[in-house]
């Protein structure tokens, strides 16, 4: 009995910190509609800054420790203000996914800044003065500081509730959460409201990180660790709902505390299982409300996807020719790099099929890439199949996964759908990570080598060129087939598509299967390229890489993902070999690209440069929108 009580209290203590971070994210999303990936970075900065401030402040005055925590949160709030004013404000008119990409750029920058400023080793903060010990609860010791944390959660919830109910500013925030266009149409300074909301959110995240200082070591992977949990909490609670965030944080904190005891094997997936169940039963989370339909007129899909013009086809033909003769000039290192680029181009195209063509954002596309890789690797090592046969097992497994996941996902839309894809990907990752006997767990599967004829770099390069290039071309065919047309109709207007008898769910489920299968092909090629498979191929960073490639290239063109993949992958390989701080540079480049090309690289070329080239042919000097 007392053991249960202690576990329950443990759950509540971790729920508090999670709640601080999650409610900030939820408030920011509610008002600004930005999925702020950088929220975990604010949390991490809060912890590091508190660590740095605590020592000197404790020497300077008694009780200095307790000053360090709020000061750290304030410092993070100021960093938040800087980010909002210098970056986010410039891109409010960009599509939401690009804002997400920009915040991901911040994540990369902060990761390297933390390494530069604080070094790679874990940092242990001081214990909270006066609360170092444990108190006795029903005969068991319980950390006194954790009791304080348990109280902090409800206190912040109360404070925020008063802020939102009793102050004029809070009422505005609630109104903007429901319908921000209307708030602007009533003359409220939207920019100031956004800045203030972002500062509040950053403050809460910073505080969440700072209060962790006496509990756990501060380290440089804290950001992604917490952001994933935070997403789960926010989505389970309902986007934009502070009370929902608290409810979800407590639910997950407590479940996790018991889960670790009862089923240690599934502790990693527990949160995601809960999220999947909640989203299937309550698609808007526990306390979420439907958002006012977005009325923005800056549609993402105002430029329809068209078959490639003749002139561009010549460019592709020349490019293909160059790729075909490349082995004559290039060494094996370069060929391997190019093989990898092509594999990721196929991966990006498959994600683009889901997002750009199907209109369904996915934060968990690595699931299908990884299933493809594991499918091929297992078929080879467990069933003893040769590469030629094992390679088929990858896409089949990936397509099967996509069928199951897609079945649930297409019941949702928007951010909720994206989050559910993330949940499924994490569940898949956790299975691969923990099912040692089959997948080898963290040690992965080794010895996934191609057949003898394809072992040389040049031979494998040609194989990749053929399979990945062919896959990309085949995927294009789907876009212009009746199935692709129907899918795009569902994306642009579910109502009208429904009215003309298109079965939306069926189209979208099939889109998942197609995208999954092609991602699976890419994954299985990747397994043979590397000769091994590790759980990384299912993990979040790979999903994010996919998103970055697709968005960098541009969502509304089919060439976009290929260009995005090439630019991003080449940049990464080049930078990683040249400096340790490649994240910093890539982060800056991503942000610069998002600000300069709000429609992606190819989108930009299509909109600004291509018309200049086309003009001499003089086919359409018509008046268009300004």
């Amino acid at each position, binding site marked *: 009995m007392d053991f249960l009580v202690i576990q329950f209290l443990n759950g509540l203590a971790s729920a508090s910190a999670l709640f601080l971070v999650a409610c900030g994210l939820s408030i920011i999303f509610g008002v600004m509609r930005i999925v702020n990936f950088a929220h975990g970075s604010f949390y991490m900065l809060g912890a590091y800054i508190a660590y740095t401030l605590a020592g000197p402040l404790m020497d300077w005055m008694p009780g200095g420790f307790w000053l360090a925590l709020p000061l750290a949160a304030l410092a993070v709030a100021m960093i938040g203000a800087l980010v909002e004013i210098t970056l986010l404000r410039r891109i409010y*008119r960009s599509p939401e996914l690009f804002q997400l990409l920009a915040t991901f750029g911040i994540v990369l920058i902060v990761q390297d800044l933390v390494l530069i400023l604080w070094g790679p080793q874990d940092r242990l903060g001081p214990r909270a003065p006066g609360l170092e010990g444990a108190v006795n609860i029903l005969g068991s010791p319980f950390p006194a500081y954790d009791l304080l944390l348990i109280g902090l959660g409800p206190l912040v919830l109360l404070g925020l509730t008063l802020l939102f109910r009793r102050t*004029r500013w809070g*009422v*505005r925030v*609630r*109104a903007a959460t*429901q*319908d921000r*266009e*209307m*708030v*602007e*149409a*009533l*003359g*409220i*300074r*939207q920019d100031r409201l956004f800045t203030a909301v972002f500062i509040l959110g950053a403050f809460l995240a910073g505080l969440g990180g700072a209060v962790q200082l006496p509990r756990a070591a501060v380290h440089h992977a804290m950001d992604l660790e917490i952001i994933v949990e935070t997403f789960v909490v926010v989505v389970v609670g309902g986007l934009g709902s502070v009370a929902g965030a608290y409810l979800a944080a407590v639910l997950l904190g407590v479940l996790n505390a018991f889960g670790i005891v009862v089923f240690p094997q599934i502790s990693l997936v527990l949160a995601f299982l809960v999220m999947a169940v909640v989203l299937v039963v309550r698609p808007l989370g526990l306390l979420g*409300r439907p958002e*006012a339909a977005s*009325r923005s*007129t*800056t*549609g993402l899909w*105002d430029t329809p996807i068209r078959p490639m013009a003749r002139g561009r086809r010549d460019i592709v033909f020349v490019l293909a020719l160059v790729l075909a003769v490349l082995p004559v000039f290039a060494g094996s290192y370069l060929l391997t790099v190019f093989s990898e680029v092509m594999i990721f181009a196929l991966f990006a195209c498959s994600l683009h099929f889901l997002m750009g063509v199907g209109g369904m954002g996915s934060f968990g596309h690595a699931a299908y890439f990884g299933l493809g890789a594991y499918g091929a690797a297992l078929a080879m090592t467990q069933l003893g199949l040769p590469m030629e046969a094992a390679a088929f097992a990858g896409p089949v497994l990936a397509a099967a996964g996509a069928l199951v996941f897609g079945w649930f996902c297409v019941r949702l839309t928007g951010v909720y759908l994206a989050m559910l894809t993330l949940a499924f990907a994490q569940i898949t990752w956790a299975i691969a990570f923990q099912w040692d006997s089959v997948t080898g767990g963290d040690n992965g599967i080794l010895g996934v080598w191609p057949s003898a004829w394809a072992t040389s770099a040049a031979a494998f390069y040609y194989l990749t060129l053929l399979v990945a290039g062919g896959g990309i071309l085949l995927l294009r065919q789907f876009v212009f087939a009746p199935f692709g047309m129907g899918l795009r109709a569902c994306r642009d207007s579910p109502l009208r598509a429904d009215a003309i008898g298109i079965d939306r769910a069926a189209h979208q489920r099939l889109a998942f299967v197609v995208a999954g299968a092609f991602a699976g092909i890419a994954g299985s090629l990747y397994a043979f390229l590397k000769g091994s498979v590790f759980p990384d191929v299912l993990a979040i960073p790979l999903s994010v890489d996919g998103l970055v490639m697709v968005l960098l290239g541009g969502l509304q063109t089919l060439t976009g993902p290929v260009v995005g993949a090439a630019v991003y992958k080449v940049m990464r390989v080049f930078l990683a070999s040249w400096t340790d701080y490649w994240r910093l540079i890539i982060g800056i480049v991503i942000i610069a690209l998002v600000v300069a090309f709000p429609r992606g690289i190819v989108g930009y070329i299509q909109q600004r440069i291509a018309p200049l080239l086309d003009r001499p042919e003089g086919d359409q000097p018509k008046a*268009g*929108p*300004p």
Partner: protein
Amino acid sequence: MKLEVHKLDAFYGRAQILFGVTLKVAAGEALALLGRNGAGKSTMLRAILGLVAARRGRVVLDGRDISGMATGRIVRRGLGWVPEDRRIFTDLSVEENLEIGRQPPRAGVPHWTVERLFSLFPNLAEVRRRPAGQISGGEQQMLTISRTLMGNPCVIMLDEPSEGLAPLIVERMAVAVTEMKREGLGVLLAEQNLTFSRAVSDRATIIEKGRIRFEGTLECLLADEAVARAYLAV
């Protein structure tokens, strides 16, 4: 002139919706913008307010050029908009909704207070603390108009304020519009309901497929049955 719109074009994506629409509204005058469903009335109001990003043409409010300005600035310059679908904040109480609309008093423009609006729409006073999502459709319409008036506009644009309301409430709306005119506001009224328009407006403009088809007094329009039949759902 309080509001002058000169050759306004507006686009949704690549589709052009408005073609060189021109109109003027004077102080204390109500101009009815009439047209069938889909004619472009709402787009017209949204484009004037800057909510349609892709637009061309000149809009002058109270002598100052507001074309190309951001919506918030236009509103703070004194242009009020009451959307067709009301868009009240359902989670907020009636009073909180009014609070959102509040702007500082403006020189030379009628000043509206919560108490004054409650005397214009007594029904609202009775539900002042209730969440706005739980009041009747008629009360919601009164609320959305009051909320816009809290911004002390010098020109107000109303998008089908009589749509779907009981006759008694429509009469209340007519009284309110008359009061606004008496205070010297310019009123631009997008409507399909001829009876209501006749009760409150002085002049009328007919829009069809994004182009102006008729301009004149309402008497003129009603006398010419052919015009009314051709462009309006009568």
